[in-house]
């Protein structure tokens, strides 16, 4: 039994990622790095390269002193059965939980460890030594096994793949297929044609794990902390011999997306104030009209630009959403790096502590969850309607008393008795 020695190559790369530039590449054998020279070259870009080849005994852990030692991992070591304590599938999951991104490629000789790791992300790889086979749709340079597939079933998501890739040349894929789950965090990026199926070369005893467009070739999951894990079923996909077809462009897009250079959003500011005022209060009144706005920018071509989305929604929540409103996007002004979204809302007539939440989750883009907490108070005693129609009799009653008093004083002072009554009195007396 050969103990697999994998060499870790450190690249200190200025990959212009938003989360960091420390990349770890894991291979089964040190000589494997010659298969992927073009891929590694494209990663380096135009920046500092500090190549450090380290023996596996020294790579003890993905973490150092409780923090991630790397920002991105390229895992090209499907055959390795990790026996050491710190390098297990669980430690890779911890790496993702801590915010690290992983680009993982497997071949048909994948170990059970990798299958277990993929299950954590709702991806079920097929058994060892199975391939994705398509008798209808294989490349001319196939070796008779009908496993080198041509596929252009790309996901139509411009956050992950650029337009040139989506509409461009098909890619070549030879490897193992997987079945992706239905978790909304998962995005299928490339899948097989309707006539494909995933199997080994023996006669089928039972139905394959997946057939047709259910066979996933490349899938990716973006975790809730925005860490990205991409699963590619073919290690040959990145190799030099396949880099001439559309593979190179897709690989470029995949690495850019996985390493947080693409499809990245952030909120630069959010504010809310009463209509007609400017100050952001912590307490509003029920039925107040407020204006809420939020600014979101996107990282495109290594700089922050205004975001193009138009379906941002605001939710006003107290345990349950009371109001959900689409925010309107204001036009982009010159020189602004963020897009402003605004809306005029009337607060509900329930009082309590509410949260203004923008919960923007779309496949391919980072998740934006932006909350601000406000209190909504009921009417003060002097904010009720001042005069009500049921009280008109009382108003007139009081007014007529006042007027009557003044009139009576006026009349009493200036009255001159004509003597009629006294005359009548004298008469009757």
């Amino acid at each position: 039994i050969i103990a697999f020695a994998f060499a870790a190559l450190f690249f200190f790369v200025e990959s212009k990622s938003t989360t960091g530039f420390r990349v770890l590449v894991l291979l089964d054998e040190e000589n494997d790095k010659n298969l992927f020279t073009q891929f590694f070259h494209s990663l380096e870009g135009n920046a500092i390269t500090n190549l450090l080849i380290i023996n596996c005994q020294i790579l003890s852990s993905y973490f150092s002193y409780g923090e991630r030692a790397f920002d991105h991992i390229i895992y090209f070591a499907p055959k390795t059965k990790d026996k050491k304590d710190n390098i297990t599938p669980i430690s890779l999951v911890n790496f993702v939980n801590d915010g690290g991104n992983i680009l993982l490629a497997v071949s048909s000789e994948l170990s059970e460890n990798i299958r277990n790791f993929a299950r954590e992300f709702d991806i079920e790889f097929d058994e060892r030594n199975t391939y994705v086979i398509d008798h209808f749709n294989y490349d001319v340079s196939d070796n008779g096994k009908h496993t080198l597939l041509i596929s252009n079933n790309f996901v139509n998501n411009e956050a992950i793949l650029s337009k040139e890739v989506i509409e461009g040349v098909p890619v070549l894929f030879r490897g193992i297929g997987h079945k992706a789950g239905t978790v909304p965090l998962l995005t299928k990026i490339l899948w097989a044609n309707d006539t494909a199926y995933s199997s080994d070369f023996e006669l089928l005893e039972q139905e394959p794990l997946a057939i047709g467009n259910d066979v996933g070739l490349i899938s990716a999951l973006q975790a809730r902390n925005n860490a990205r894990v991409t699963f590619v079923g073919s290690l040959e996909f990145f190799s030099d011999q396949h880099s001439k077809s559309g593979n190179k462009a897709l690989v470029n897009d995949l690495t850019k997306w996985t390493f947080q250079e693409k499809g990245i959003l952030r909120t630069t500011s959010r504010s809310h104030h009463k209509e007609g005022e400017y100050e952001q209060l912590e307490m509003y009144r029920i039925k107040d009209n407020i204006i809420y706005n939020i600014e979101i920018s996107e990282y495109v071509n290594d700089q922050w630009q205004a975001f193009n989305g138009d379906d941002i929604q605001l939710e006003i929540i107290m345990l349950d959403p009371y109001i959900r409103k689409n925010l309107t996007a204001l036009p982009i002004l010159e020189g602004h790096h963020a897009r402003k979204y605004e809306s005029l809302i009337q607060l509900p007539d329930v009082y309590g502590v509410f949260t203004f939440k923008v919960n923007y989750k779309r496949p391919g883009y980072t998740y934006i969850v932006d909350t601000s907490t406000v209190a909504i108070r009921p009417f003060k005693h002097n904010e009720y309607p001042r005069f009500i129609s049921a009280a008109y009799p009382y108003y007139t009653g009081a007014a007529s008393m006042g007027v009557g008093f003044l009139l009576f004083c006026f009349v009493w002072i200036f009255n001159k008795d004509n003597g009629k009554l006294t005359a009548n009195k004298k008469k009757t007396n």
Partner: protein
Amino acid sequence: MRRSFVCIYALTWQILALLMCSTILAQDSERGFIIADIKLAVTNSEAQRKLTESLTYPSSLDKLIELSQGDNLKMIFTIQDKATKSGIQPHQSLLVLSSHQTGSQIPILVKVRETGKARAELYLKSPTTRNLFSGNYSLNLIIGTFSHDNPINYHIGTVKIDIPKTYSAPVKYGPKPEIHHIFNPDQKLPPTFLSYSFVVIVLTPWLFLIGAWIHLGVNVSFLTSELETLPAIIGFLGTLSAIEILFYNYWTHLNIFQTLSWLSGLSALAFFLGQKALSDVQEWRLKGLR
């Protein structure tokens, strides 16, 4: 001459060998297979035949195949090599149901024996274990092998599946429907007509007052007769009106402190003016004018 004969002999054999090889190669590049004797049957749970059809590749079935809970769809056919007519066992022989609604594909394995006889069965027992839901599906037979070229994707027909399970879409991230808050209706008050009628009722004593005054012969004759004492009396009455106006302002917009400050001033004024005015009135009385 013997040499040339040997040459020609060798040449013919070479040509023959080449021809044989080319024919063998030609046959190899055209190695295909055919499917024949396709029979489709649907039986329901009481073992009654609902549908029996024979098909020939590549024609499809026009009418709808209807399957409900407990039904059994069975299909048999034979796969043979085109040239030798011997049975082959293809690697991929699957009956695929593709949903018209979602595009998802459900496989049914076709078991092929070495003789080339193939059979597939779909049994809709309860509860359904497959990923099927109610709806229309396209039934396709996909056969592919490594040994032969020209794989077959044969559209057999449309299947309508009627089972209790319906399709429920998985949760996907996207915009959610808007929620508009329904505000409580305003407080209901009695009809304004009623309020106005009571306003009229409240104002009716004025009729009695004015009527009684006219009956008594009430007048304001001193207003015109005693002119030099007028300013004090008018001032006094004006102060009283000012106090009334102050009360009205207090009712609308003033607070108690402003009211009291105004009131202190006005009441002092009313006191002094009133003393003068009422002493004038007393003089009138003493003079015998009243």
